[in-house]
């Protein structure tokens, strides 16, 4: 049996169903990300796992024990909140020690364990400061330390990086991953940022409208999207209707086709292309966006607007709106989606 098993979980608020028939398993030490747009039910699912929400139906098993009916106090699950939720009246040290005090652990033991996690999250020297004296990144590390010190069975992270600026977010992202691997801690991370999900997780559960629409590794979700929603959410896919596919690619299909912007080529004179590359189509550039290492073009092909990503190799390559070019599709990368 897996370390965490969730069976047919259902949550309703009065008449509104937040999520239904949620099923998944998680192995010990796995880093799982629940990814999805705002309002898809991901935070409610996380709160239900923590015991902060009750559920209408279904079961949650952790380490062979059914914890569905246990209160949050009894679950031994750690959680880090987007708002940090640090206790403003306590110093860093007292915030971290709070969980151990509740467990009535011996004072010397508390000091020792608190020191250990303070070193782990690199907050040495800040022990006696109050939360209001810390920066956002430091606050979130205190919150992390506070959850880690009680040695939870599972660590839940509810958009912990959303309130931080980009530079600190990247650093803390890395730090969380390192700590998670070091402690071999089963972790569930909630975010709406697909880049965050792809760089951090062992597996991603992609949620939409109260359902897990696809679960798998970042690679799976990115290259094998199960449906249109996944394709759009994970990778700016171009979606061609059956009719458009017929007119641009000359293929007859009964469903939509998805293709990633980076698997479209611009034809270069005198270069040979393999059989898996489609015949060139004429496209007109509508606009371009410089994303740093990548230039994203919006081009018009017949009645269809298509996104093409090209590596930004040199400034000469930047093509202006209105100019014409020949684009070709990598047929192996075409995905049929429902």
């Amino acid at each position: 049996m897996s370390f965490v098993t969730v069976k047919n979980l259902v949550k309703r608020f009065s008449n509104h169903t937040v999520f239904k028939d949620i099923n998944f398993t998680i192995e010990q030490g796995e880093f799982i990300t629940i990814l999805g747009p705002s309002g898809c039910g991901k935070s409610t699912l996380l709160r239900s796992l923590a015991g902060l929400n009750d559920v209408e139906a279904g079961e949650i098993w952790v380490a062979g024990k059914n914890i569905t009916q246990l209160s949050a106090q009894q679950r031994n699950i750690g959680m880090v909140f987007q708002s940090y939720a640090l206790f403003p009246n306590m110093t860093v040290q007292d915030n971290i020690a709070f969980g151990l005090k509740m467990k009535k652990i011996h004072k010397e033991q508390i000091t020792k364990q608190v020191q250990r996690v303070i070193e782990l999250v690199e907050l040495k020297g800040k022990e006696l400061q109050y939360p209001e004296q810390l920066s956002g990144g430091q606050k979130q590390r205190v919150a992390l330390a506070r959850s880690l010190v009680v040695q939870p069975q599972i660590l839940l992270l509810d958009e912990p990086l959303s309130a931080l600026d980009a530079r600190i977010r990247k650093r803390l992202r890395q730090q969380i991953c390192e700590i998670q691997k070091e402690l071999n801690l089963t972790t569930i991370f909630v975010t709406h940022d697909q880049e965050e999900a792809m760089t951090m997780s062992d597996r991603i559960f992609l949620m939409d409208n109260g359902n897990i629409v696809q679960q798998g590794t970042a690679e799976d979700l990115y290259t094998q999207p199960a449906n249109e929603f996944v394709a759009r959410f994970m990778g700016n896919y171009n979606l061609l209707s059956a009719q458009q596919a017929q007119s641009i690619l000359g293929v007859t299909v009964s469903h939509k086709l998805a293709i990633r912007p980076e698997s479209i080529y611009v034809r270069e004179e005198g270069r040979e292309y393999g059989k898996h590359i489609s015949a060139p189509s004429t496209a007109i550039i509508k606009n371009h966006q410089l994303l740093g290492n990548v230039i994203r073009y919006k081009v018009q092909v017949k009645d269809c607007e298509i996104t093409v990503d090209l590596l930004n190799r040199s400034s000469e390559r930047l093509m202006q709106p209105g100019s014409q070019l020949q684009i070709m599709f990598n047929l192996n990368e075409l995905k049929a989606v429902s």
Partner: protein
Amino acid sequence: MIKANIIYHKCIVYSTIALLLIPILATFLYSISSSWGASILPDGLSLDWYGQLWQDPRFLAAFGRSLLICIAALLLSTLLIIPLIFVVFYYFPKLSGLMNVLILLPFAVPPVVSSVGLLQLYADSSLQIVGTPWILIGTYFTIALPFMYRATANSLEAINLRDLMDASHLLGASTVQAFLMIILPNIKKGLLASLFLSFSFLLGEFVFSNILVGTRYETLQIYLYHISKSSGHFTSALVMTYFLFVFLLTWLASHISRGTQS
């Protein structure tokens, strides 16, 4: 230009302060003058009036009664309002709108009207509390209610109550433990500030104590009212003593609430 402006503003502020200080200073001067008849300045200075006041058993008793009633009313308010407000904010946040209206009701009715209403209500009642301190404690509780509720509610709104409670639950604390160890310390300053303010306000309350209790349980304000017909010097000493006491409390309240904001 800017300098002229500053001088102009300072002039207005200082003259307003001076104007407000005149009656207080005059009262103070009168309270420390041995006698002050047909001359511009008093005939002599002495602290006799203060000495007399603090040796008057009637004053001490009235002061003690006022303190007792105010402290009892505020104790009652604290014990009832703090749990109430926590329950409203944590379990029934939708009710906070209704509470805001309810809490303002004691303000809506003028004291003269509500005291007459209370008299009528309790005159025929089997509960004979008119003329006893009990009715004053109950009434003062309702007067303190809006102050205490608003101040505590503001402190609660300033913290992220739900996340703090969730975090402490997940760390193994019960709701009571979380309330005592996390929530209460964070609303303590707002609560103390409102307590001091209500206290100085209640200490000066006259209408309710005069109509509901009168001389049957003489409070400080009733005593002041009766004594004001005798020596002006003595009354001035009493007013100054009262003023200093309230000033101290108000200063404490503002000092504590400044601490809340920083």
